[in-house]
């Protein structure tokens, strides 16, 4: 039942991302060219409402289904790392027009090439795990 719930939320995510075209390569390209408000509207609305909901959950000391309070373990602030890592990610995001979530949704839409993209992203993650000690953290 628990796993089925997560599957259902994933399904909702896939439908929302498809119907809003947020996983369209063309929409991502348009966003990085600042030629439409569409993507900024989606991310902006999600963040503003998300922040309000999270703040409310914390304020009301709402219990999660795992019987915990809503908390967040903050990352250590390390500006060069965030910028470098983010930039590497951004290069791939703009090229493929898809970040990790959308890769799976696009696969479900029938774009078989994303099997390769997901495999390659897994390889990239593996490469990071292997050389992480040599990178600035």
């Amino acid at each position, binding site marked *: 039942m628990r796993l089925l719930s997560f599957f259902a939320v994933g399904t909702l995510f896939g439908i929302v991302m498809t119907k809003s075209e947020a996983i369209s390569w063309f929409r991502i390209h348009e966003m990085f060219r600042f030629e439409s408000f569409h993507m900024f509207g989606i991310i902006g609305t999600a963040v503003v409402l998300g922040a309000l909901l999270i703040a409310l959950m914390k304020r009301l000391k709402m219990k999660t289904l795992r019987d915990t309070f809503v908390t967040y373990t903050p990352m250590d602030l390390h500006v060069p790392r965030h910028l470098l890592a983010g930039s590497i990610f951004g290069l*791939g995001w703009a090229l493929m027009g898809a970040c*990790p979530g959308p890769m799976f949704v696009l696969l479900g839409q029938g774009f078989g090439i994303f099997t390769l993209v997901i495999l390659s992203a897994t*390889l990239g993650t593996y490469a990071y795990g292997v050389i992480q000690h040599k990178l600035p953290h």
Partner: protein
Amino acid sequence: MELLTFTHGLLEIVRQPWHWAVAGTAIAGIVFLMTWMGQSFGVSTAFRDFCTLAGAGKRHEFFNIDLKAEDWRFAFVGGAVFGGFIGAYLLGNSAPIDLSAATVAHLQQDFQISPTEGNGFLPTGIFNFSNPKGIFLAIVGGFLVGFGARYGRGCTSGHAITGLSHLQLPSLITVIGFFIGGLIMTWLIMPVIL
């Protein structure tokens, strides 16, 4: 009969492309649901889980994790694939994507790409299995996303949506990084390679 008409009307509304405010609200709803269900919404960690599943935990400590605690992420990702299928085949529409005229003109003139390709979701003229260049770019693009996401401890869902919702400064700086990389690719690299 009236119920049938109502259901049909509702389906017609859902089938239209969704306004950004509707999508943004729905994504905030997903963040709420995931938080309420006791997990922090993030997709890219699934790639690390795949590495662990393939046995990488025996070689590198980084991948030595208990996959039991990650079962929900596999369920979510499976749902995302299913949701893409539902969205495209049951709730899809044939209307072309309403892209800005400036983007359409640029794509056609500079890259010979039409926004009708891949139903407005992917330039399938480039990204298909019979185009060696597309295969190469897909491998490079995927690799960069996987590497960068793990190095930065998260992707768009974990940082831009969840991290920012928790008002995290590291997430904000990572998102700025996403845009630095994205702008370099879009404005400087793609005109050369496409």
